[in-house]
């Protein structure tokens, strides 16, 4: 409670931000009520493209959540001290991201009142069952680790010994959440775009690029807004991690493209063609997919040159490029590309509706609200020191 009180002590700018987030959340909630009444017909989804923005956002934010391991691992396993404070920020980001994931799954359900059937009639044969275990376990672990660390810092005592094994377990667990999420898709025989062993590694690589990129952006924002400095070394180290992850991600995408096009199997080529060239006169996603490619190459160029990478302005730009690029690739292309063309060769357009987008925006706003409150608490503790 003492810790929670820290979240509620600041000036006008802070409250204005909180109030506007709450307004967005409220508006989004009203849209959700509309969806509850009229069904998922209020979305742009269809018989052929039966998952869209909601499930795509879920996938993207599982990646953001998993990426906390990129600060936890160096700090706890390699004793990389510079990551001390940034690690806590990473864990808190994971808590917010997993919560968003759960919300995205929830709003996607056709019968949300029956959600507890997942607990009442569990089906271990379903990957979704394992994803639920992976995500809830990860949420719990990160929440406990962050709370325990914060409490210890407030009382100026070392963290209790029992938390160490929890932290160690959370490392492979972070890898597992995104692996299991990839298995949701890569185990489906009828969807050639997802039916690839590279999907899980690709998910991890793109997560370890986009998540730490977001963390860098958050740290830079914190420095502007509150004067908290995560430390130059820590930010630069994170930037190196992002560079490697981004390069690996680009490599894996190219490996995928090679296999599809050199083998020439039509079912494998079609989805890439739909996304990058367009088929049957539908080219809607083409500019977005190429924008994603362009952004990731620009970011890679900016990050590869040490002089550019250490320039805060260029680093910010690179991180923004990566976040946008991977959001387009994972949050848009992955889902629509997997469903189009359909098993019967149909090219069905999917355009998210306003209602659907507003619901997504509301979940983003609740994520931002969580991050604001969490970081506020952490920062005010550190300020007292």
């Amino acid at each position, binding site marked *: 409670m003492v810790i929670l009180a820290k979240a509620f002590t600041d000036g006008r700018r802070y409250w204005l931000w909180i109030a506007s987030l709450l307004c967005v959340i409220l508006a989004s909630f009203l849209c959700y009520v509309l969806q509850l009444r*009229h*069904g*998922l*017909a209020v979305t742009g*989804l*269809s*018989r*052929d493209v*039966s*998952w869209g923005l909601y499930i795509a956002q879920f996938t993207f934010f599982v990646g953001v959540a998993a990426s906390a391991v990129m600060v936890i691992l160096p700090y706890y396993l390699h004793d990389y001290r510079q990551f001390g404070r940034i690690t806590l920020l990473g864990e808190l980001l994971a808590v917010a991201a997993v919560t968003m994931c759960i919300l995205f*799954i929830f709003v*996607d*359900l*056709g*019968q*949300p009142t*029956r*959600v507890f*059937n*997942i607990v*009442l*009639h*569990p*089906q271990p*044969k*379903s*990957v*979704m*069952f394992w994803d*639920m275990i992976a995500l809830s376990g990860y949420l719990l672990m990160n929440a406990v680790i962050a709370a325990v660390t914060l409490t210890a810092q407030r009382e100026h005592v070392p963290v209790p010994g029992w938390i160490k094994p929890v932290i160690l377990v959370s490392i492979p667990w972070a890898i597992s959440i995104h692996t299991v999420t990839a298995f*949701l*898709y890569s185990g*489906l*025989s*009828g*969807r050639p775009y997802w039916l690839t062993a590279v999907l899980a590694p690709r998910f991890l690589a793109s997560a370890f690029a986009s998540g730490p990129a977001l963390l860098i952006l958050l740290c830079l924002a914190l420095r502007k807004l509150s004067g908290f400095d995560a430390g130059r070394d820590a930010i630069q180290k994170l930037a190196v991690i992002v560079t490697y992850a981004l390069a690996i991600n680009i490599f894996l995408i190219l490996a995928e493209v090679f296999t599809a096009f050199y083998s020439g199997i*039509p*079912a494998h080529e079609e989805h890439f063609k739909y996304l990058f060239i367009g088929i049957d006169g539908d080219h809607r996603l083409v500019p977005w997919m190429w924008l994603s490619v362009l952004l990731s190459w620009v970011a890679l160029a900016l990050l590869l040159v040490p002089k550019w990478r250490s320039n805060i302005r260029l680093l910010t730009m690179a991180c923004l490029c990566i976040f946008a690029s991977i959001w387009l690739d994972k949050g848009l292309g992955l889902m629509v590309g*997997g*469903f189009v063309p*359909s*098993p*019967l*060769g*149909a090219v*069905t357009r999917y355009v998210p509706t306003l209602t659907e987008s507003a619901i997504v925006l509301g979940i983003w706003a609740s994520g931002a609200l969580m991050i604001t409150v969490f970081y506020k608490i952490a920062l005010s503790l550190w300020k007292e020191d």
Partner: protein
Amino acid sequence: MAIDLQKCRQKDGCDHCIKACHSTHNVPQFADRAREVKWIWKEPFKNVFPAAQNGYTRAFFGDLPVMLACNHCDDPPCVGVCPVDATWKRENGVVTIDFHRCIGCRYCMAACPYGTRSFNWQDPRPAIANVNPDFPTRTQGVVEKCNFCEERLAKGQGPACAESCEEKAIVFGDLARPDSEVRQLLRSRFAVQRKPELGTGPAIYYIV
């Protein structure tokens, strides 16, 4: 089930089986193709069997209509993925859905390699012209598909689609019994399944 494609296309534009099925099972009729709900329907040959054609035959066979429905696979991918056990395979081989347990996550739709599952994007009841009181209507937010007329099989009747077909193009029977009509047919005529290479073991055979 075996479908004789030649007999099936004897009468142009015939849709007796579709009408029989959809009125028996209270399947709603929506004008919007993207949101439609369907248990049995026609699709051009080239889309149903994309691998079973070449540049020379496509022009002649590509656009011929083929009847589609749930394949009631031996090893159905849709059943494995359901997180709440709302769809399962009965001992008689029918893949069925519990409309009261389905949470509407649509994982089964993503998993079905045949595109045979439909989702109720909106309340289906206003879109049913004449409600058949002997079969339940569905609510919005659940998945549905062909049930091989299990409610009729229980009463010793054949599926509505097979019985409504004047050309007798649809032959239904127990594939496990070697002396059944459908097995005899499969011994005498060449038949193919949709995407057998996926290992799902579809129970609908197309006699070509």
